[in-house]
């Protein structure tokens, strides 16, 4: 008669993983409860919120269509140009930094780290805050908008393009090096063709985001349709606000459809 062999217990997580997971859960719940208890919300404001919201939409409709040719169309074109030029500038600025940040191309941890720090700082500061700084530097207008779009996008483009560079295969590079090709040719013919689709895909993705972002830059004076929105808001012309929002909605949807169809073909 054999003694019963102890059945082996299978567990999905190691004890350490379980501790980490429950710690994370506890931290999450504590943070949530703390926020609920201490956030300052004035309940009186909540009582008439539905009325206020309804009032808002009543005032918005019907849109002030006459306002479109007067002020919106030109501002819309300007927004489009700000987003596009800002994206192009960001591409030019981010590309060398992305090469610096890719560990397989630049073999210097200090330079890699430096590029990463620049990317993180660029992404941490919101585009509206960049716009505040650039309005202080260049004065109100489209230039400040272009610069803030560019500086905000450097981090995004640089990080994603740097990751694409790190995934590039070594084969073509080795082949070119073996023929004695100079460094610039190795980059242009060994690495660039491998990463070109992802470069343009990242650029389009950011352009799509920038169209959205450039629509609000005008609120702090950096040009574009946000200026018209700000004027309409401060004059309490809600029918103009409604029109501008509808215009932004349509443009954003069209741009998203275009970019996603191009990106689907690129990759």
């Amino acid at each position, binding site marked *: 008669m054999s003694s019963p062999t102890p059945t082996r217990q299978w567990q999905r997580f190691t004890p350490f993983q379980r501790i980490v997971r429950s710690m994370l859960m506890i931290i999450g719940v504590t943070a949530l409860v703390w926020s609920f208890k201490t956030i300052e919300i004035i309940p009186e404001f909540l009582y008439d919120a539905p009325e206020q919201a309804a009032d808002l939409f009543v005032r918005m409709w019907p849109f002030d269509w006459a306002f479109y040719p007067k002020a919106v169309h030109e501002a819309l074109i300007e927004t489009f140009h700000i987003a596009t030029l800002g994206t192009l500038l960001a591409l030019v600025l981010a590309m060398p930094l992305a090469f610096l940040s890719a560990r397989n191309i630049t073999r210097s941890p200090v330079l890699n780290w430096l590029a990463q720090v620049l990317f993180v700082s660029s992404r941490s500061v919101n585009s509206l805050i960049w716009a*505040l700084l650039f309005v202080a530097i260049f004065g109100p207008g489209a230039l400040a908008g272009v610069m803030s779009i560019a500086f905000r996008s450097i981090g995004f483009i640089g990080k994603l393009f740097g990751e694409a560079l790190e995934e590039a295969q070594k084969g073509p590079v080795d082949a070119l090096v073996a023929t004695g090709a100079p460094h610039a040719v190795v980059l242009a013919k060994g690495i660039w063709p491998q990463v070109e689709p992802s470069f343009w895909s990242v650029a389009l993705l950011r352009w799509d985001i920038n169209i959205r972002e450039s629509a609000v830059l005008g609120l702090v004076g950096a040009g574009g349709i946000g200026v018209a929105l700000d004027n309409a808001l401060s004059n309490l012309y809600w029918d103009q606000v409604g029109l501008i929002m509808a215009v932004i909605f349509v443009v954003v949807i069209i741009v998203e459809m275009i970019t996603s169809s191009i990106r689907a073909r690129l990759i």
Partner: protein
Amino acid sequence: MTGPAPPSRPAAFPANWPVRIAYAGLLVYTLYVCSILDVSLARLLSGLDHAAKLFGRMFPPNSAPDKLSLIADGMIESIQIAILSTFFGTLLSLPLGLAAARNLVPLWLASTARMVIAVCRSFHPIIISILFVKAVGFGALAGMLALVISSMGFVSKLFAEILEEISLKQIEAIRATGASFINVLIFAVVPQVIGRFIGLSVYQFDSNLRNSTMVGIVGGGGIGAALFTAYQRFDYDVVLTILLIIIALIILCEIASSRIRTVTQ
């Protein structure tokens, strides 16, 4: 005696004219836009002068105790806005994302949900904040509601895409036991997507934290109000302090969230 001339070989890298024309087009566009937007070297150079003055007034960052306690209050409010908006935003994204998954629900429901998501996504959080400031008044609530809406737009869209990629075998197996739709969801769908959904939520927290530093500019609560006030009063040293704190917090949060995402996935 001369040998036969070497056969001419094709160039190793032939010129790619369509691409060259496209680049030339981009260049022409850039020059055209620079001219109509009044972007010129002279303005950039005069800007450098202003920039030097601006940075001169920014340094050293202001670390007076009264300013720091003001900034701390604003930062805490921003963090609270980020936490609560992520919680409600992801919670509401669960049903919205499910309703937009074309493989699980009827087409009419999916297209309606996709319309809702498109509306949530296409407006910048700042514009949504402006509307909520009008609807519920100044303060953290307006910013929080705005970020809930933008979180719903982003998380539901990606959640719907995740749901559309799931394996249908488990669903078939659970359905074969006679399980109801709710049970199919709980036992066949949720286990396949929960890890990626949590990853998505953590990512959204990151993004909400960034945006919660900004909604204050239009009255939505958080550090943005303090930042904008300092900016309008030309207290650029306080602006720098706030910016440095924001950058530090966001870097910390980004490191933490990428760690958490590797744990959950």
